């Protein structure tokens, strides 16, 4: 599904990614761990098509070269990034944002746009699965939401848009145990043999709930080590110091 070959990324004349290789197949859950500044968030940003990075190398998503696609086209083709810091957008109603987003993705896929009533029914159902109070949906997007509410809202968007590849950038940060479980349940219930996940995290604790097939350790902009789920537990004990 996703194939990254020799990816380099620079921002403000600083090399962040230095020849990263990664393959993700449908049905797989990959976790990326690594110390601060190792390039985890840069990888997420580059995959989402954020401006400002100079990149080299190949990123293929289902045979399409991602370098040719704008951010919105990537999203329409099924790449979803759950932001580490979801943005507060004053004046934009959450419901209207969600419907605009869903319809933009549907339209790009050649599907019919969804009408307001059907949408409201759908979103109500998805929100209740994640324990999101309906009232949040009529508020301004993320404005005044707590950290946990913002992260839940990201997972709600994921479940609504039904991406093929979901990238979760430190979705566990700022979550209490209950919220963490709800978010993990949200991910687990969406997981199937046709979609895949790339989970960026500092801690093993999210991986206790969402079991990864592979764990990669990122160091100096490269994958320094790859292992199975047990690698996370090992790292929890030994730290990143021995990996380079």
């Amino acid at each position: 599904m996703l194939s990254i070959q020799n990816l380099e990324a620079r921002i403000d004349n600083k090399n962040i990614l230095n020849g990263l290789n990664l393959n993700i197949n449908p049905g797989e859950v990959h976790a990326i761990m690594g110390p601060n500044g190792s390039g985890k968030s840069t990888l997420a940003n580059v995959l989402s098509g954020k401006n400002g990075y100079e990149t080299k190398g190949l990123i293929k998503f289902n045979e399409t070269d991602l370098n040719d696609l704008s951010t919105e086209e990537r999203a329409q083709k099924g790449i979803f990034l759950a932001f580490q810091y979801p943005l507060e957008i004053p004046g934009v109603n959450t419901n209207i944002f969600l419907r605009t987003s869903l319809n933009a993705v549907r339209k790009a896929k050649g599907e019919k746009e969804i009408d307001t009533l059907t949408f409201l029914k759908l979103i109500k159902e998805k929100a209740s699965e994640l324990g999101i109070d309906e009232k949040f949906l009529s508020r301004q997007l993320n404005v005044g939401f707590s950290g946990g509410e913002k992260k839940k809202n990201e997972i709600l968007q994921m479940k609504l848009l039904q991406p093929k590849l979901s990238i979760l950038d430190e979705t566990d940060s700022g979550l209490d145990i209950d919220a963490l479980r709800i978010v993990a349940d949200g991910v687990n219930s969406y997981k199937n043999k046709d979609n895949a996940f790339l989970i960026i995290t500092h801690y093993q604790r999210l991986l206790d709930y969402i079991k990864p097939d592979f764990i990669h350790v990122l160091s100096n902009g490269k994958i320094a080590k790859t292992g199975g789920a047990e690698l996370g537990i090992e790292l929890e004990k030994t730290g990143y110091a021995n990996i380079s």
Partner: protein
Amino acid sequence: MKQFYDFKVEKIKDLSPEDKNLREEYLDLFYKNGFPNKKEEDWKFTDLNSILSKNFDNITNKDFLLDNKKLNFINEFEHNHIYLLDGKLISSDLTYEDRNKISIIDFNYKNNITIDKNNSLNLLNNALAMGGFTLEVSKNYKLNKPLIIYNYFSKDIKETIINNKNSIILNDNSELTLINYIDNKSKDNFMVNSMENIEIRRDALLKNIFINNSKSAGYFYKYIKSDLEKNSVFENYILSSGLKFNKLDIEINLNQEYAKSTIFSALNLLESEHQEIKTRINHNSQNCQSYQKIKNVLSDQSKGVYQGKIFVKKIAQKTDAYQLSKALILNDDAEFDAKPELEIYADDVKCSHGSTSGSIDLDSLHYLKSRGIPEKEAYKMLISGFLGETLEKLIEENVKFFLLKKLEGQINGN
């Protein structure tokens, strides 16, 4: 400089000799000053004399043109209305109200003279005013529905000035939501110079909304003087995008304690539109509150101006005054000028002001795009969110919905 105006009192029919003399005196005073220019502090960023001289050949005053129109009613929500044609009261309809509780009467020149000799547009208005209304709401009466003032203008209005005077009185504990609605698509230049006197008595609430239906090549100036008594509230919402030129000059006198005023403005200016909001909030008594949030989005060669002054008298302790101006400048040729001023003589007050200008937040844009929303649409969402946020406090859902729809239309350039 060429003379681009020619005003004559004698064009106004049926004046008593006394009125005629008075008007002539005001006109002489106006001619001594001419239209305001940038040398005057209040017109520092809006050189009206120069703007008008570039855009008009010869502005004249006329007697009523009275080219009667069929009103194009707003049908999004039920409302009462007043119909003004060229500033003159034509009819009113208070279908939803107790007729004994509201009076709307025609313009009365003598009752409506305001003297501010430093304001030459006031002088001109006193010389040439020909229409308007006096609206009074009885004690304890709260209108069931909003009242829309439909402002229409005759077809043959090119190079003409209209001067009118209105007066609005809300007696104790009364409530009114007023919508000043300009429905004009003129591509011809004309000018409107209005003066409005507003009295909001104890515990009364006035909401004053400014909106127009479409683009208009008119040059609008409105001077509002308002006086608030104890515990009264005056809310303003300004959405006048699309007018070629507009200056709202609002003076609010918080004369008794616990009076409260708010001004929310949301303008999306395009092409060569030039709009100014000028406010003067006088905290004349203690425990009063004033709040101003002014938002501008500027494209093309447009110009936005905000001059906001908060004046706090020595006796006005426990004043709570807030003023914020935010502008998004989307084009290098667009301009925004802000001049916030605080003049405070009391020592126990909370006053704050801020002014920011910048461009669209790229991280926010990226966030919306990352959800599949095309860039153009994401851009518009951010702009309408930025401006629409000023309507958060408006509790009438149907009116708010209507205004948001209009705002969206303005952003789409309709």
